[in-house]
């Protein structure tokens, strides 16, 4: 039952992903992308990471995609011209397929290490996913977290510097 559901979601995710690269209008592509985001959020829930699923929806679908769509609107971009694809489509396909083949190959042949950590599904249920993440982020990964703040600052400053009209 669960596996069927998985396949279903996976199918939707892949098809939406395909729509992203196939749709003529950027807006449609964006919508496809949002769809994928949702599918991934579902996966996250299935993987016992409900907080991540929430963040996924809020940050990606809510913030980033809105930003993107906003820019699309701002620039008033309609459907792309007839030549949607660049010339090197054959090579691009080959390259992408090679990447896919490689990745599939190493997933098939590769081996992920067995479970070692203590963040079991049980732990998640008993402590709450959010709490666990919060603890980890403010203790073990404090420094990256701080750096992330600088990163955002840089992004803001940068965006402002670039996008404002006059000096």
């Amino acid at each position: 039952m669960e596996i069927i559901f998985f396949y279903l979601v996976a199918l939707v995710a892949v098809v939406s992903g395909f729509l992203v690269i196939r749709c003529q209008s950027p807006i449609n592509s964006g919508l496809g992308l949002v769809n994928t985001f949702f599918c991934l959020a579902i996966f996250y829930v299935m993987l016992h990471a409900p907080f991540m699923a929430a963040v996924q929806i809020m940050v990606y679908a809510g913030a980033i995609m809105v930003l993107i769509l906003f820019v699309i609107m701002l620039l008033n971009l309609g459907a792309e011209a007839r030549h949607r694809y660049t010339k090197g489509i054959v090579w691009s396909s080959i390259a992408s397929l090679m990447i896919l083949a490689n990745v599939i190959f190493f997933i098939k042949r590769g081996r992920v290490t067995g479970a070692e950590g203590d963040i079991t599904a049980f732990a998640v249920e008993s402590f709450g996913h959010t709490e666990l993440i919060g603890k980890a982020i403010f203790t073990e990964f404090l420094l990256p977290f701080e750096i992330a703040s600088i990163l955002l600052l840089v992004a803001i400053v940068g965006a402002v510097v670039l996008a404002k009209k006059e000096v």
Partner: protein
Amino acid sequence: MYDKLWLIPFFPLLGAIINGLLGKRFIKNEKIIGAIGTGAVFLSFLVSCKYFIQLLGDSVKSHQNIVASWISVGNLQVDWGFLLDPLSALMLMVVCGVGSLIHLYSIGYMHGEEGFYRYFSYLNLFVFSMLMLVLGNNALVMFVGWEGVGLCSYLLIGYYFEKQSAGDAAKKAFVMNRVGDFGFLLGLFLIYWTLGSNHGVWTINFVEITKNAHLLSGDMILGTGVTTVATLCFFLGATGKSAQLPLFTWLPDAMEGPTPVSALIHAATMVTAGVYMIGRMNILFAMSPTTMFVVALVGALTAIFAATIGFAQNDIKRVLAYSTVSQLGFMFVAMGVGAFTAGIFHLMTHAFFKACLFLGSGSVIHAMHHALHHAHLDDDAQDMRNMGGLKKKMPITWATFGISCLAISGLPFFSGFFSKDEILWWAFSSTRGNMFVWAIAVIAAFMTAFYMFRCLYLTFYGEQKTNPKAKDHIHESPWVITLPLVVLAGLATVGGLIGIPHAIDIAHIGNKLNAFLAPVFQHSQELYKIEAHGTASTEIILMVFSVAVALAGIFLAYVMYRKNPELPAKFTAKFSALHRVVFNKWYVDEIYDALFVNTTKKLGIFCWKGFDVKVVDGVVNGVARLFGVIAATLRHTQTGLFQNYALTMVLGTAVMVAIFILN
């Protein structure tokens, strides 16, 4: 006491330096310059005389005077050293003696020339070099002189440097000499190396070489005896310097120089250096019958070959030049058949009569030149067709010239008779002799007599063919010119008496020269069984025969040029092709040009334009250009398109991952 030997070459060197450095700016006066030049050589002559006399009275016949070490590197020890032995002493006398006379002569001959100081400086430098050549106690000092005389020859031939032909001739002389030097050096290396590495005697000293030469008898190189190869190399050197086949062509051209130069360098001294060198190394040559035969053969062929060309020349100096080549051939015949003494003897007598001939011709040319100049004519002052009948105008010149012609033709009791006869006798009867060589030599002697008298008749007899305008301006030359002529003619007459052959030595004077030179040659002649054997009667018969041949030659000349002056023209008309070939010197120069000069030039052009520019630089520039092309091609991968960049990245990644995983 022979420790002042270095004075002999020193004086001319000093003279050369003084005249060369100070002549133009400070001395200026021709008389003083001439006096310095002549005086320097004369001083050398005096010193030479002193040592000559001293040597005569000395029981030890070989003396070395080492001034300083020259090159000293390990085994190779070369000194600035001089060697006085009978051979070099005799040469000293000839060189200094004849040299002084020619210097004296030059004062008159060169009078009024722009580069008077230069001329005397060169001439002194030449005498210096010649004396180094003669006196050197080792092969390298000899080589200094050897090349030095080549240099001076170059300088003096090119004395009239504004004339293209003079420059060409000078260069030709030097280069041909260098070809010879190439042989000389190789021979020297071979002897030095073989003696050293096989027998532990590292030396190039003549005395040492002579002493140790017997060690070489078993050494082989290239399947032949070392001595044979080495002496052939040396002989190549000799052919260059002494203008033998095949390197003789420079000598006739060398007549571009002033006439006294021809007399001194291209008749009396330098060109005989090859003969002298063989004499110096007689033991090595004696060890190799093969080389000896080659020497004799080349000598004989040269003698006859040059003589044929001498037939057809109209330039008085050229006739003499070919005659010189021919006579040098005789000397080589002598050396080749083991008649070392005879060779040196002929060298000496030749120095006298040929110098006299050249100076005589110089006197004529001088007179002609003056006359023509006076009459503002452009006729060739050296062409015998413009002369004739000068006997009356220039009696002294005529007399001396005539005597010398008799001497060179080998008429009895003139100096040439004794020396030439001895050569023929040895060629006939020596253990190294050869009938063939003898026969050629006899024919050459006949021809010599013929063309020398042809020259004499054309110049001094018959009617005067000079342009009438100039006719009356021809006078006898001044005393500085005639005095040397007289002295040399005298020597040409009596000089032979020091070497009277045993067979006709009625007065029992003895062969003084033979005795004198014995210390030098006897050793090798005895060691290698070189001797002339035959009865006195045979010798006398041969002598008579050769005199008859000479007389026949003279008679023929008389018939053709005195009695029936129209005969030669008929003759040439009949054999015009032959005449043309002979007149053009058998086209040897042209053949050489085609074979060597042009080939070398073409090779040079090929190396430069073909190889250097096309191949080497072509590769270099080609690589540079290739990189340029590759760069220009590769830069187009940088399309500026984002997606191409991304594609490259992805492909790169995919390939890398694939390789990694598949490994």
